[in-house]
Every structure is written in structure tokens, then in C-alpha cells.
């Protein structure tokens, strides 16, 4: 139980990552695979933010006087996640446009039919 309360954010983040990976591995519909990529992206962002968290910390913004600098969370992972979110949006948009082209060309979004696989 103590393990659960200590690592609950890590467990949630990796839960999202594994759900995303499972969708990517198993599903045959291209739109579902793209949704899986989105979920995986969210999990990675959540994990980075959880790594930077400091117990009982506040946001690293000196918006009013009297905020304790020792009590703030790490700003570096937050800046990295800001970058990562924007890149995630770009990847999703590009993947959706490729899905549109594939649908126009093959008439289906089923990956088995597109790649002519058996399973």
C-alpha cells in the first residue's frame, strides 16, 4: 500500500504508456493506432512532469512576494513537456493527413488489407 501511494503518478503514467503501446500493437484500424499514439504521448508527458515533482512544491512562478524558492518544483521537465506537447500535436496532424491519403488510395483504413497481411 505504501508502494502504491509513493509511486501512484509513475503507475498512472506507465499505465497510459502501456495502454497506448497495446493499442498500437493490436489494433488494425489506422485511426485507432493514431489514437494509441496520442495516449502514449500523454503518458510520456505525465511521467516527465511526475519526475520533476518535489513534495509539497508549488509552480515555479514568482507571481507574488513571499514565495519560497526552496519549495518550487523543477522547471526543466515542465519546459521539456511544453516542447513535447507541441511536437505531439504536429505528429498527430501529420499522421491524420497521411491516414486521409491512405483512405483515398486504398478505400479502407484496415491495416491488414493495406499491407496485405494475414493476421
Amino acid at each position: 500500500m505504501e508502494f502504491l501511494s509513493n509511486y501512484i503518478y509513475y503507475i498512472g503514467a506507465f499505465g497510459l504508456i502501456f495502454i497506448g503501446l497495446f493499442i498500437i500493437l493490436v489494433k488494425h484500424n489506422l485511426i485507432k493506432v493514431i489514437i494509441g499514439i496520442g495516449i502514449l504521448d500523454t503518458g510520456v508527458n505525465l511521467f516527465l512532469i511526475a519526475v520533476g515533482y518535489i513534495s509539497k512544491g508549488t509552480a515555479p512562478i514568482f507571481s507574488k512576494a513571499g514565495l519560497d524558492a526552496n519549495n518550487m518544483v523543477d522547471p526543466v521537465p515542465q519546459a521539456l513537456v511544453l516542447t513535447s506537447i507541441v511536437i505531439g500535436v504536429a505528429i498527430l496532424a501529420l499522421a491524420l493527413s497521411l491516414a486521409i491519403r491512405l483512405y483515398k488510395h486504398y478505400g479502407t483504413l484496415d491495416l491488414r488489407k493495406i499491407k496485405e497481411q494475414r493476421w
Partner: protein
Amino acid sequence: MKKIISLILLFIICLGIVFCLQDIPFGAAKTKVGHYYIDNGREETGATNIVTSVVLNYRGFDTLGEVTILFLAAIGLGAVLATLKKKGKRQIEPASLILKTGCRFLFPLILLFGAYIFIHGHLTPGGGFQGGAIIASAFLLVYLGCRERKINEVANKITESIAGLVFIVMGLIGLTVGGHYFLSNFMPKGEINTLFSSGIIPIIYIAIGFKVGSELTGIIDNLMEKS
């Protein structure tokens, strides 16, 4: 069959991650550089939002790469969808009066909120990327609500290019005048916690706001018109 193999594979990865994570305690400080930024960020950059000072000042070069990736994705999306035949005349069913009026009422307010977010990027949570996304959502509202309207594509591209140029030119001026590195803060930092402070950070965030807003609007335009 495929599901079972995937589950076994994921279970093996999960075991490896559990062993790694036991060395990363939750809730303890892990990097020294983060504490350096918190202690010295206000004096060195003049921004009260430390995340902004990391994104635009200490690691401004990364942000340039990020903006470039967004630009490349928008260009790639346009190129992938460019050869599609346009569906003749789109069957436009005019929206109802209530929807149209609400749209017209909300559009300037959303634009104002987006501008507020990216102008105050160095003081409050937010910044160019978030404000740009809010501005793009205003244009998405126009596309969904007032369906016969369309954005001006040429003006969109010109805004995007000028905003990108402003970013790079500010960086190059910093390289030549201010110091020895790209995007060095050469303008006066002003009084901390006021709107006109922290040198080049607000200027670059305004440029990023316009760039991200116009780029996402272009993506929305491409996806709505050509698909």
C-alpha cells in the same frame, strides 16, 4: 494470438521499468540545474515565470527547433493533401441565426484571451504556444459555426513568415550585439513583475503566438477544405 504475444512483450518491458523506477524516488529534487534556474532566473532574465525563462532564454535554441518542427509538420500536411482533388462545391448548409450570432460574439473575445495569454507569458502561466492554440481555436469556431466564411490564406502565410523572421532576427541581433550566443538578452530587463520587463522575452513570445496561431489555423484549413 497477436494479443497474447503483445501482452507477454509488454509484461517483459513492464518488469524492466519496475526495476529501473525503484532508483527514482518520487517527490525528491533530482537535478541541480533546476535549482540554479529558480535561484538566479529572475536576476539573469527578468522573467518571473521560470518556465518561460528556461524555454526562451536558457534553452531558446531548443524552442527554435520546436517551432521548426511545427512548421515542417504544417508544410508536410499541406504537401500530402495538396494533390487531392478538391471536392467540387461543398454542400454548405447555412447555420442557424443563434449559432452564427454566438460565433460572431465569441470570436473577438477568444482572440483577446489568446493575446492576453501570450503577452503575459513572462509573468503568468501561459505563453506563445498556449496563446497560439487558443487563437487557432477561435478560427476553428468560425469554420464550424459560420460555415460559409473562409480565412485569407495569403495573409495567413504572410503572418506566419513574418513571425518566424522576427524570432530569428531577434536571435541574430542578440548574437551580434548582446553577447556571444544566439538569443542572448540584449534589451534592458526593466523592473521585475511588470508588463514591460525581461527584455526580448515578450517580443519573441508574441512572435511565437502569431506563428503558432497561423500555423494551426493553416492545418485546420487544410484538413477542413481538402478532406
